[in-house]
């Protein structure tokens, strides 16, 4: 039974990563059209498409836009999420149950619909769409996620620690700096990672709200629907590797911080 369950887990994992592997292979093949297996295993590989992607000015602009949106979203989402998490899990207040449900609601709505609704709203207000509006749309979906991630940490935090600090003479600010923030730090850090990566990979919200500012997922979708180019899997794979590197670096930093503390 245990072996069966382990096997099942590994099989599902293999299926999860199979398409990512296919994309990586397609981006590395020399030919204009994807053929598998290659006729010549030794010679049919090349980094040509990767080089083409890396050299394209258009794509550099996309990456810059995606990074800008992700960075802005990360900073804001952590600020919003930290406050939200305290309201969600810490303070006992009358509207709390109601607030908890409201925060979860955007997660339960189809993202294309949220994106469209935001587009119409910005249109009504006379705000032109661009990276700023895309960041707002991302926040509506990402702030709830960050709130939940930090809230889980807040639940595990014993309020007696703050009381003890107050009892030992620490001011409100000193309690916040010396006790609350360090205790919530792991949650804040994972929340920031989630915010960055979810924004970086988001397509349905950007589709409607980024306007003329292209993002990497938007560009990929346009090319996929239009026809095949190996630049699509090449850029997709590069984006995937970038996300993996960010995740790995984030985990390493968290581990380092834990080892020191």
């Amino acid at each position, binding site marked *: 039974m245990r072996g069966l369950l382990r096997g099942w887990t590994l099989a599902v994992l293999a299926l999860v990563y199979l398409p990512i592997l296919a994309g990586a292979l397609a981006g590395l093949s020399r030919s204009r059209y994807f053929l598998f297996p290659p006729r010549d295993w030794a010679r049919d590989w090349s980094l040509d498409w990767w080089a083409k992607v890396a050299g394209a000015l258009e794509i550099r602009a996309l990456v810059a836009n995606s990074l800008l949106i992700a960075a802005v979203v990360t900073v804001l989402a952590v600020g919003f999420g930290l*406050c939200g998490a305290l309201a969600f899990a810490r303070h006992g*207040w009358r509207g709390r149950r109601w607030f*908890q449900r409201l925060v979860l*609601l955007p997660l339960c709505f189809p993202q294309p619909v949220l994106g469209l609704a935001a587009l*119409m*709203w910005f249109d009504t207000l006379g705000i032109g769409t661009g990276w700023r509006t895309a960041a707002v749309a991302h926040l*509506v979906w990402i702030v709830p996620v960050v709130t939940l991630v930090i809230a889980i940490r807040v*639940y595990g935090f014993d309020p007696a620690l703050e009381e003890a600090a107050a009892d030992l003479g620490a001011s409100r600010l000193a309690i916040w700096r010396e006790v609350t923030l360090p205790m919530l730090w792991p949650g804040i850090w994972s929340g920031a990672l989630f915010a960055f990566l979810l924004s970086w990979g988001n*397509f349905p919200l950007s589709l409607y709200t980024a306007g003329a500012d292209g993002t990497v997922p938007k560009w990929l979708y346009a090319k996929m629907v239009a026809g095949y180019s190996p630049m699509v899997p090449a850029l997709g794979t590069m*984006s995937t590797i970038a996300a993996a590197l960010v995740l790995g670096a984030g985990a390493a930093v968290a581990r380092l911080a834990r080892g020191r503390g």
Partner: protein
Amino acid sequence: MAAPPPARSRRRRRLSPGLRAAAPVLALLAFGFAAPLATVAAMSVSPPGSFAPAPGPDLQAWARLVDPAGGLPGSFAVTLGLAAATVAALLAICLPLAHALVHLFGRWSGLVSTLFVFPLFVSENVRLYGWALVLLKNGLLDGTMKALGLGPGPDWLFTPAITLAGMIYVHLPFMLFPVVLGLSLVPRETVEAARDLGASRARIWAEIVLPLASPGILIGMLLTFTLAAGALAEARILGGQSVIPVAQEIETAFSYAQDWPGGAAMALALVLITGALALALLAAIDLDRLLGRRR
């Protein structure tokens, strides 16, 4: 002779710390979530051909929505049916998976969980496109089978079935992690006690594990259902127009068809269905217990 105000009323005028902490998020959701949905609602009752909410109310868009001749009710039925099938399949896949994650991997469970989270950070288009590359003629599957002399691979691409498979694939983490949270709510001793009292494995699942884990399982079902109901890319990239979900009808209405009120009515209908479901389910779940592991 002004008497000092009673302490009680003074306290009421000051915001509670909870409300103060909630204020930024509430403001964001009011601006980026509630107001846009209100705009959609206003747009859906605007006269045909308008591109901004216009004074109405004009119910033509809603009339077309429920007209069987227009094919839209069918589109809704197909979409919700696919979403329901996605939920059922994900439950079957994720219950054993979540059990394994909670109980079997020990110190590796962090790594295995991360491997399941990571795809969330890769644009779903890229992953779906990867499936197209697997299933294409001369793709990963077809090519491998041919090379092994097993004949041509199955012709699955551009069918309704592969659309469903794509939806299951994309939404797996949204089922898996709430179920993991739910299963870790089940105290080990209750399962041991049930076994000690002579309950079979199936009985233990039916009578102990599933009821205790139900908050997580319900949240997973809710998330996957609502997200699948709004799914767009699966039908486009893998299904090749063999199925047309509501989300695509909406997109068409806003782009080619230039029918903004019609699109808004469809969007609002979808929001109302998923929103009602979400509110009904969330009202029944104790989030403090699920997230705070308070037994």
